């Protein structure tokens, strides 16, 4: 077997140097980027592994591979570009693609890498600072390979079946992480000493105001006040019994720390959790990231890179990437359009109080203050926003109307999916809901000693939409596998407060 040749051939290396030069002129600031050329089955393999050369062993990657290679063989789809958030970044080109394709991909990739490096959400994937240049250390290729080694070692020791079964369960919990957690200050490992606290224990009696004269009692401490104080006391006492002391969204983290796990189980769970946090920023910035990369590939290709003979092929390819099929949102399209919209607004000075207050349609249409701040603004946006804040701040009524966006839903009366409305606020609300928490329900650990029986209690922060129940029950089974005691989830099913429970043998749901 000869070594696989994946290094970039000379003519592509020259092209890369040329493109990087242009990208720098435009102010893109990216990690060094290594391009490799892969055959389609290598590409499919790496894509199945989420862009990495190695991951931990699990059938799910095999399933991805099966799907990718099947759809490639049947000509349904082809992966053009793949890039991983690593320093240096690693990107892949498909062997045998046309020169225009390769150039397009390189331009697109540089956009992504610039985004990885500069967007604040990605700072959570930093693994430290390089002492020499102060740059971020992101050696995720190595980390993923290490995770693979850890899981393989345990597979050999305790058996592949057991490890795989555990991974299946852990993956059911993969989305139970806290997007804010990486930004919170590291919690103090040890709190202030208990005896130094002002009130070391919750009081036995409700706190009432001191009364000097007895006849004043009902005025100083009126009945409502006494009641309120009593209730507060009861709550505090309830809380004191609780662990964790505040609801915790990092369910995975909680389990890693507190579930009764064997060493191998804890390792596997930690691996899943760490990788979940690694992939989180990519889910939080799907629209922005693709929008930003598409903005730059189109700018670079049309203004610098492509020559006259290539421009038609480029346009054709670009149209394919941007196409909206079946009325679904295409993150590439939405991202790039919104990015250009922001640029245009700031170029023409369409912002600030004066603009907001202007009701005159004609004036708004022809508004141009020649501020020319567009480029600067979108660079700022790529640094400070994620999809939720990006949409929240910049998706306007004009944009929704111009781009024919709508909200759709399921109509049970005729069993089909229908356009519900084109109302701006409805559309925006729905889109934001979909993006919040990367489309996952918010679930927190409430109590690890529920009913004083060591049972795990979780709550679903119900925002109007129910959980998919059959799956929720499966997840409870997975939780029970980890926690090894009965687990309960408080949620709402069909407008009724419900406790879903799994005690190790049976599922039950009873109204609360």
């Amino acid at each position, binding site marked *: 077997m000869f070594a696989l040749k994946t290094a970039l051939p000379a003519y592509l290396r020259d092209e890369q140097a040329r493109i990087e030069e242009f990208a720098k002129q435009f102010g893109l600031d990216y990690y060094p980027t290594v391009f490799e050329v892969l055959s389609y089955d290598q590409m499919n393999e790496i894509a199945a592994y989420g862009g990495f050369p190695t991951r931990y062993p699990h*059938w799910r990657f095999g399933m991805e591979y099966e799907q990718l290679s099947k759809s490639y063989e049947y000509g*349904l789809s082809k992966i053009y570009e793949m890039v991983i958030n690593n320093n240096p970044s690693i990107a892949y080109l498909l062997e045998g693609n046309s020169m225009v394709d390769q150039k397009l991909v390189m331009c697109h990739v540089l956009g992504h890498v610039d985004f990885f490096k500069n967007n604040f959400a990605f700072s959570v994937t930093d693994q430290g600072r390089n002492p020499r240049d102060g740059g971020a250390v992101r050696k995720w290729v190595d980390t993923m390979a290490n995770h693979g080694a850890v899981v393989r070692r345990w597979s050999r020791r305790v058996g592949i079946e057991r490890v795989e079964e555990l991974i299946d369960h852990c993956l059911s919990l993969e989305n139970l992480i806290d997007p804010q957690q990486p930004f919170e200050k590291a919690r103090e490992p040890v709190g202030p000493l208990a005896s130094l606290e002002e009130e070391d224990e919750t009081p036995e009696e409700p706190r009432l105001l001191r009364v000097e004269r007895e006849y004043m009692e009902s005025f100083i401490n009126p009945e409502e006040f006494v009641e309120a104080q009593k209730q507060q006391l009861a709550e505090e006492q309830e809380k004191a019994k609780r662990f964790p002391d505040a609801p915790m969204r990092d369910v995975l983290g909680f389990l890693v720390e507190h579930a009764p796990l064997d060493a191998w189980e804890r390792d596997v769970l930690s691996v899943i959790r760490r990788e979940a946090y690694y992939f989180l920023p990519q889910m939080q910035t799907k629209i922005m990231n693709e929008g930003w990369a598409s903005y730059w590939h189109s700018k670079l290709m049309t203004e610098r890179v492509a020559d006259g003979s290539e421009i038609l092929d480029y346009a054709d390819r670009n149209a394919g990437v941007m196409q909206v099929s079946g009325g679904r949102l295409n993150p590439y399209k939405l991202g790039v359009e919104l990015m250009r919209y922001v640029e245009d607004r700031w170029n023409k000075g369409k912002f600030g109080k004066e603009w907001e207050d202007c009701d005159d349609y004609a004036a708004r249409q022809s508004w141009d203050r020649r501020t020319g701040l567009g480029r600067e603004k979108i660079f700022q946006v790529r640094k400070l926003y994620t999809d939720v804040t990006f949409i929240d701040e910049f998706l306007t009524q004009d944009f929704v109307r111009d781009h024919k966006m709508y909200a759709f839903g399921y109509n049970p009366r005729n069993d089909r999916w229908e*356009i519900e409305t084109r109302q701006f606020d409805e559309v925006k609300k729905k889109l934001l809901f979909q993006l919040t928490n990367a489309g996952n329900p918010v679930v927190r650990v409430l109590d690890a000693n529920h009913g004083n029986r060591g049972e795990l209690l979780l709550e679903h922060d119900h925002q109007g939409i129910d959980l998919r129940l059959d799956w929720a029950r499966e997840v409870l089974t997975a939780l029970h596998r980890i926690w090894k005691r009965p687990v309960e989830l408080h949620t709402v099913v069909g407008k009724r407060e419900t406790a879903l429970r799994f005690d190790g043998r049976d599922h039950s749901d009873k109204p609360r």
Partner: protein
Amino acid sequence: MSLKIDQDHSRFKAIVRGKIRENLRRYVSQGELMGKQGKEVVSIPIPHIDIPRFRFQDKEMGGVGQGEGDPGAPLSQPGQEGEGEGRKAGQGEGDHVLEVDVTLDELADILGEELELPNIDTRGKATIVDKKDRYVGIRNVGPNSLRHFKRTYKTALKRQIALGSYDGKRPVIVPTRDDLRFRSWRTDQEPVANAVLIYMMDVSGSMGDEQKEIVRIESFWIDAWLRRQYEGIETRFIIHDAVAREVDRDTFFRTRESGGTMISSAYKICAQMIEDEYPPSEWNIYPFHFSDGDNWSVDDTLLCVELLKDRILPASNMFCYGQVESPYGSGQFIKDLREHFGDEEALVTSEIRDRDAIIGSIREFLGKGK
């Protein structure tokens, strides 16, 4: 070339195979399976194995899209957000359908394993042995007509690269004697067994489309299993209402006649066919008869019993009668058969209520290993 993912991939496929088994019932009773039958391969839709998570209900969730249409207009491809390119033909529920190709042989094996079907005790020319050459490997010597060009080329290429005599600019490969590779074979000895399946079906007015579909699916699986068991297999088709005639496969499944039912007419042709063409000493004979159990008269039923007793059963390995439930049939025939042949092992009866009963029925027919 071996890839790192091979292990995960084969693991997935093993699970899918398990998946096929678990859900076999479901797939067997899906008529669509027949439509996707290729030459040798059957495409089986396999559900993507979803990992359950806390998720919102799709139908309550809805989403945001882009395009033309007024409120109330239906969407063409609803539900999940896809990655452009149309990678998954999605349904609303997010049921990704993944198709896995399974060869007919594999499928029959899976069926056999699932139903715990015994291998069949063949009879006939069990003593006659046929020789068959199979190409199974590669060796270094052999006649030039069996030279394996690709292997030879590869060996030569490897040698030249190792020696450094390979010139990328002028890539000429000259194999030496040691580079030559030849196909090698093994001679297998196989007993020959021949089988004939004679399908008879009632096409009288009372057999509806659904009933015929059931017969079609069931005969497909019986075919698949018996083909796995026998080398050379022939199938014959007879349809009948009040009169019977032999037809080809296509007509067999399509014809819809109206009128009465004389089962004996089909049995007569079947008996004649066996006597003329398939001497039982050389053939394994499997007549299958599907009907809704409504015969014209008691006399005709008695005639059938006689035909079976005297001419068909003695010649056959097994006679299978499958009764499909229909709203019009009386279902009397199966009772008559059971009454007359209660203790006859070579006659198997089975009632097929609906599509889900097909699997059970196949087990009843083939579970005896005859």
